[in-house]
Structure formats: structure tokens, C-alpha cells
């Protein structure tokens, strides 16, 4: 029975030390991640869609203009 209480005590210590270790390690990681957010400009490489916007209408516009011109040319040739 003496042995039993000894092992139980050991297990309880392990429980305490383990939880403290896990908590302090992950707390440290929290600090690290928060620092990371400060270091790396959070949105540095995200605004791709805003770059894509002005460029995309251009070819679309061109296409409609080209279509309109071809249609006009064809009509003109038919009329002749």
C-alpha cells in the first residue's frame, strides 16, 4: 500500500508538471504567433483581386469592340 501511495504521488506530480509544461509551451507559442502577425505585414500578399480587377475589363472591352467592328464591316460588305 505504501508503494501505491508513492506511485500515486508520482502520477499527481506528473499531472501537475505536464499541464504546466503544455500550458507554458503553448502560451509561448501564442506570444510567438502574435509577434509573427506584427512582423509580417498581415495583408502584404493578399490584395491580388484588386490588381486583377482593372486588368480584366480591358480584354473584355477589346473583345466587344472587335466584335462590333467585325459586325459593322460585314454589314458594309453585304450592303455593297
Amino acid at each position: 500500500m505504501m508503494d501505491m501511495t508513492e506511485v500515486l504521488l508520482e502520477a499527481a506530480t506528473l499531472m501537475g508538471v505536464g499541464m504546466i509544461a503544455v500550458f507554458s509551451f503553448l502560451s509561448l507559442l501564442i506570444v510567438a504567433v502574435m509577434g509573427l502577425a506584427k512582423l509580417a505585414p498581415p495583408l502584404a500578399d493578399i490584395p491580388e483581386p484588386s490588381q486583377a480587377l482593372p486588368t480584366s475589363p480591358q480584354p473584355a472591352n477589346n473583345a466587344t469592340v472587335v466584335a462590333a467592328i467585325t459586325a459593322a464591316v460585314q454589314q458594309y460588305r453585304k450592303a455593297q
Partner: protein
Amino acid sequence: MEGLIKLWSETGLANFEFGQLVMMAVGLLLLYLAIVRKFEPLLLLPIGFGAVLANIPNAGFNDEGGLLYYIYHVGIETGVFPLLIFMGVGALTDFGALIANPRMLLLGAAAQFGIFATLFGAILLNAIPGFDFSLADASAIAIIGGADGPTAIFLASKLAPDLLGAIAVAAYSYMALVPIIQPPIMKALTTKEEREIQMEQLRPVSMREKIIFPIAVLGLTILFLPAATPLVGMFCLGNLMRESGVVDRLSKTAQNELINIVTIFLGLAVGSKLSADKFLTVETLGILGLGAVAFGIGTASGVLMAKLMSRLSGGKINPLIGAAGVSAVPMAARVVNKVGLESNPHNFLLMHAMGPNVAGVLGSAVAAGVLLSLVGG
């Protein structure tokens, strides 16, 4: 005539021992759970089949020179298979939700209380005659509460190889049972108002943060807990391959082909440990019971921690997400989402629960490292 008798003496029928038949039945039960009930089929199917193969008389799968002997020897005794799986899991994990809200790491830490409380419980079980768990055994059993298959197998192979079969089967069975075990605990510990809390949308996370994150995690592990570096290191390697964007081929292989191949062998090797003399003991019953307790306590402590954080933040955190702190990715997060939707059909908690969920993976790897360095040495 003599030939016939010799042939008869070589048949399975003449050589079956009762224990082998029981273990084959256990294997078939696992196959049933995998195929009909769809419980973690990717693992329970090879484990179940491995159990059947391992208990065939005269086939010698588990003897030196047998197939399962070598698979176990090469992959699990060395710890290689669980670590390769962990690399694949790293490649499958998106830390975005955690980086956006790093406080969620506290939930992943709180849920690990299930592990350490179970360790105490396993030692307490020694008071009952028939149980004789050493501190190393108890640690290997307790890691079931981490709800992380590869971590459990890795730790069991290092601390208590004799109990590995029972521990792995318990870990994967309870992971499949997460949708049944967790909701009652979550509901008992929270009020309806708390379950209805809606959380703010997470900020977008830049690619640079996602790339630096695994390196930072590894750096901290190297500095403070080198015993956890096998697990955390492989996990971070997988994650870096995913987020760096320059090795898509490697990342895809780690996420698909490699993890699938290793899963087949891991399952078979675990199944090979389901032999009658190792599995048909009262200790197995104890392990199954302790595993359920570990899951329950982990869920409860995660929810309670989330409740505390919710109070401190002035009601900005839904306490349900604490339940996702017991890894079991992504099942636990889905359960959180489901329970949240039951209280408020417009409240989608999935993304918020992914934070504590992946924090739980890190938390159980750290807990495994702590146990290894305190008990394994």
C-alpha cells in the same frame, strides 16, 4: 493414411486455440464496424484484417520471418510509420484559423488535461486486483485522451509496446465515436445562451505568416522540448511543404499517396498486435474504459476553459469550440459546428472550431513529448 493424418495435423481446424478464434471474431467485429458502420474505415479495415491474419494457426505471420512481424518491426517498433502519417497530417492541416486567433492555443492546451487526469486514473486502477500498470503503461494509455492516432501509436511503441494493440484500437474507436461522446458533455456544461454566441469573422492570414508559423513552432520545440521534435518536426515539415507553395508535388504526395500507403501498413501492423495473449486480458478492458474517460475529461476541460475565456472576453467566444481542443481533426470541429447549429441555425462555428482543433494536435504532440521526457528516460 499417415499422409492424411499429417495433412490433418496441418489444417487450421486441428490447430485452432480458443483465444485465436476469439481474436478472429474481434477482427471481424472491427471489419463490420469499418464496412457497415463506417467507423474510421481507413484504419479499422486494415487493423481488423491484420487481426484475422495474425491469429491464423501455423501461418506464422507474427513469428520472425513472417510478413506482419517485419511490417511491425520496420514501421512501428522504430516509430517510422506514425511519424510519416504525422507528416501527411501536417500537409493536410491549414493553420490559418489558429494564426488569426492564436488564443485558441489555450483551448488546445486545456483539453490535454484529459491525458494527464487519465494517467492518474490508470495508476488508481492498480488498486483493483488484476491491474498492474507501470507509470510508462499509464502514460501510453493516457495519450488516448489526445485523440490523435499517430501520436498514441508513437508513444505506445516507445513506452508500452505490449499494450499497443489495445491502445491503438481504443484510440481509433473513440475517435470514431466523437459525435456520440462529445455532445452530451458539451450541452451539460454550457447554457443555451452561451451556445448561441456568434463569433466575429476571422481576419485573413497572409501567406508569409503561414510559411513562418511551422518554422516558429519547430524552433520553440527545439529550444524547450526536444523530446517532441520527432512528432512536431515531421508535422512542421508536412505543413511547410503545403504552405511554401514551391513543392506542390511533394505536398500532394504526403497528403495522398504516402499517407495512404503508410496507413495500410500501419493498420496491418497494429492488427498484428491483436493476438490473444496480449489482448484478451483485463488490462484491455481497463484501457477501453480509461480511453472513454480520457475523451470525456478532455472535452469537459476544453469546454470549461472556453467558458472562462468567454467570460473574460465579455462573451465574444462560444464555449462550444473548447470541445474541439481534443484534436480528432476534423471530426471534433464538425461536432462543434453541429451542436452550435442546433442552438442557432445561423451560427456556423466550423472555422472558429478549426483553431482549437489544430491547436489540439500541437497540444497532444507536446503532451507526448512531455510524457516521453519525464517517463521514457
